[in-house]
């Protein structure tokens, strides 16, 4: 099938599927794949039955820890994580927004110490339907609408 030829199959590694197309570069940044030395393939604006279009990233010879991969749930909550060994799918999981987030998200409060001095941001997830992150420092809530990444 033509569709499969677009991105070659993975022998060992991780496939991150169903990423919103516009978030692929953010995912690459959050996972620090810019500095990864093995092969990475990614696609953007691929056809998707579920979402219309989607992005996908295939990372050779890399398996992510749960807390590491869950960080991308903020930009790609619908993403699916597929673990591959010897061309076989070992596991397929969805992502969960972590309860504690360090150093990815910017606090939206301009008068927060993290926006004034060099301080690593820290947030705790507020239990709610929507994404709500309470800043560990200024205690203000950064919501879905003012979510920005460092």
């Amino acid at each position, binding site marked *: 099938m033509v569709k499969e030829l677009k991105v070659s199959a993975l022998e060992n590694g991780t496939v991150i599927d169903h990423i919103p197309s516009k978030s692929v570069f953010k995912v690459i940044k959050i996972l620090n794949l810019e500095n990864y030395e093995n092969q990475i393939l990614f696609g953007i604006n691929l056809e998707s039955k579920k979402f219309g279009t989607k992005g996908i990233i295939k990372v050779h010879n890399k398996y992510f820890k749960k807390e590491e991969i869950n960080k991308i749930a903020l930009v790609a909550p619908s993403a699916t994580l597929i673990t591959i060994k010897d061309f076989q799918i070992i596991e397929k999981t969805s992502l969960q927004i972590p309860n504690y987030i360090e150093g990815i998200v910017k*606090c939206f*409060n301009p*008068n*927060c*110490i*993290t926006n*004034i*001095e*060099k*301080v690593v941001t820290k947030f705790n997830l507020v239990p709610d339907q929507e994404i709500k992150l309470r*800043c*560990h*420092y*200024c*205690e*203000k*809530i950064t919501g879905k609408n003012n979510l920005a990444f460092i």
Partner: protein
Amino acid sequence: MKGKSLISINDYTKEEQLRILEIAKDFESNPSQNLLNNKVVATLFFEPSTRTRLSFESAVCRLGGKVIGFSDSSSTSVKKGESLKDTIITVSNYSDLIVMRNPVEGSARFASEVSKVPVINAGDGANQHPTQTLLDLYTILQTQHTLDDLHVAFVGDLKYGRTVHSLVIALCNFNCTFHLVSPTELKLPSAVKIHIKEKKLAYYQYTDLNDVLPLVDILYMTRIQRERFSDPLEYERVKNLYNLNKSMLEHTKENMKVLHPMPRVNEIDIDVDDSPKAHYFQQALNGVYVRQALITSILGLK
């Protein structure tokens, strides 16, 4: 509580808060106790304050300790661009405890993470001012002999007033009923009301101060601040909405007391000052006892 910084009121459990109030009571009956011999407390005030700074310094002096610090950062290396981190690390080498007020929100939490000695937050912007909350609790306890099941009215700027937010949250531990009086544009934020709802407590909202006067045990007045309004006309419209005067106290409960975190402008007429129901100057004095209690328990002396 030895060695434990106080940044947000919720850093201390209800039991720890009550313990501080108990120690404060001891200081009220015996304010001069020589417990801080050879101890140095740094008071770093990056923005102006009368009551908070002076009551902290008075508390240290009455305990026989020494105070170093500044009340205006323009005479320090902060002016040369020194970071808060470097300032705090340096000062924590010179002192046993740091008390800090800084207009930047979250600065106190950050300071407590880089400091070698405990930090007491004396106000970080619009975020927290936990020692005010403790002295408010102490004053309520002092006047009502209990903190439980009281009817408490908050009047004025309930949207931006950090003292109101922290005190409401603290009172949620004591089964209070809240009467919230404010112009519609200055209502208590939902982020604070969440705490009331979580504890399944009752709250009522009003725009007219007269509606709550006969109902409450505590009338907590606040100042409506001009700088909160982008439209000066809007400020003019609301600034005189809530002026308490002596005649309004007639139909209030016998045990009712008027509190105010101060400074006041015109929300409490000076003719109220002589009334036995006025308790805001005593409230400011209580700040010394509560801060004595806090300093000595953090330093492990009480």
